[in-house]
């Protein structure tokens, strides 16, 4: 039985701005305001404000926090510098993915951001496995905003002097409108931008302040999905799940060097084997011929029509004006340029494996010109 839909702190704020609300991760959330295409393009050209308060924000503190988290994640937390978010994964004993997340060392504790739809399971998973010397706190009173796009830096630096000095995947404590905020230069669109954690009681004022800037429009989940797909970023529950491993999912960068060699995290045996021998299948990007989108659930088929893989995300790319997709294909067909045949509702489509991202990332990396 599904639980009744919950509301987020900005529920009325979204509705007042004309959002169409849908159920997502158990919450009523905005799927779109003026339209997915317009919101998508606005984010690529200006700055889009996303409410991602459904995501789980978690603190793990205590003397055994680092050791306890290393037993659950393939990240090298021992060398993780303060205020540097790191992408990581919760893994099952056989190397499946329970969730993908960001983990940041903040002084004497770690700050984690996990997916909304999986947060309760993640927290139960961690609480039951963390040692007594590590304490987990679910920050339920904290909201999360993302400001994404080439103008995000101009907008946020106007409101929060100093954020322009952050580089991609760095973070810090700031004050916005007199309220403490944890701000990281990161996001889920492939664009430069920020993620802003603020107390839920203040989020309405802060969202209004940001959205009132001329470069900013609120953006719904629809464009969030098309933006992340163009950026080649996987979506948990679609491109990643219990049945996919980090090696199959092309997330080897999330397996820190020391951890790959030493192990000591769930699923290491299978992951080490796949790193050595190669996975049997791999997540790849596909450029689909023609104009018709091929979506999640479509099959990858061989010449005889046998299913050999599956499309896990797919749609029409507003930026390239062509259908694009992510799929798991046999390792032998995973090299860029390989031809792949797809089947959707009885119709066949030709596609080619292409490198991801589909649209170049425009992160503000360290050492890049301002």
């Amino acid at each position, binding site marked *: 039985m599904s639980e009744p839909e919950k509301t987020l702190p900005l529920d009325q704020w979204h509705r007042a701005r004309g959002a169409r609300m849908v159920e997502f991760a158990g919450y009523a959330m905005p*799927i*779109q305001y003026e*339209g*997915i*295409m*317009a919101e*998508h393009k606005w984010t690529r050209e200006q700055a889009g404000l996303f409410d991602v308060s459904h995501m789980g924000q978690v603190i793990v503190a205590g003397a055994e926090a680092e050791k306890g988290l290393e037993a659950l994640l393939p990240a090298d937390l021992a060398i993780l510098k303060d205020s540097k978010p790191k992408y990581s994964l919760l893994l099952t004993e056989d190397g499946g993915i329970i969730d993908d997340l960001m983990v940041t060392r903040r002084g004497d504790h770690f700050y984690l951001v996990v997916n909304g739809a999986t947060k309760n399971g993640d927290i139960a998973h961690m609480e039951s496995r963390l040692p007594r010397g590590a304490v987990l706190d679910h920050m339920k009173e904290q909201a999360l905003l993302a400001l994404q796009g080439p103008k995000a830096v101009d907008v946020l630096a106007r409101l929060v002097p100093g954020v322009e000095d952050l580089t991609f995947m760095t973070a810090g404590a700031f004050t916005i409108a007199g309220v403490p905020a944890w701000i990281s230069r990161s996001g889920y669109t492939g664009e430069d931008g920020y993620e802003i954690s603020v107390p839920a009681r203040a989020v309405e004022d802060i969202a209004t302040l940001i959205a009132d800037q001329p470069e900013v429009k609120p953006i719904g989940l*629809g464009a969030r999905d*098309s933006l992340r797909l163009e950026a080649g970023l996987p979506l948990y529950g679609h491109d990643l799940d219990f049945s996919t491993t980090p090696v199959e999912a092309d997330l080897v960068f999330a397996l820190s060097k020391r951890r790959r060699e030493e192990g000591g995290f769930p699923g290491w045996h299978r992951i080490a084997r796949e790193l050595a021998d190669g996975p049997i299948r791999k997540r790849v990007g596909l450029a689909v011929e023609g*104009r*018709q*989108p091929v*979506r999640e659930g479509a099959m990858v088929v061989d010449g005889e029509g046998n299913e050999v893989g599956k499309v896990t995300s797919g*749609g*029409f790319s*507003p930026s390239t004006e062509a259908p694009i997709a992510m799929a798991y294909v046999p390792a032998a067909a995973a090299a860029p340029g390989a031809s792949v045949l797809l089947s959707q*509702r009885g119709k066949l489509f030709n596609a080619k494996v292409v490198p991801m991202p589909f649209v170049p990332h425009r992160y503000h990396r360290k050492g890049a010109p301002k």
Partner: protein
Amino acid sequence: MTVYYTKEHEWVRVEGDEATVGITDFAQGQLGDVVFVEVPDAGRAVSKGGEAAVVESVKAASDVYAPVSGTIVTGNQALVDQPDLVNTDPEGEGWFFKLTLSDNHELGDLMDAAQYKAFCDSQ
């Protein structure tokens, strides 16, 4: 000329024994940005309630059903290159196909403009 409407949010403009079919402004608003349309070939026989065309938005794929039975006269080829006509002019340039009616009596099952408006308001 009379315009009829279906519960599937299609409009049917009838002139003599020929009908032009498209989706309503309400339907295009629900679909969002249309990125692909597949229209039927001339000469194809369609039966009432059967699949006749495909429309896909950024969000999702939908079938367009034949609101009445008949034989396709032409599909709107303009939609192949400009699928967004469905958004910008759904009840004009964004028409999907024309067909020759095989049974005028089927029109009696459809709604008129006032009935359709009431139907949308109740949705």
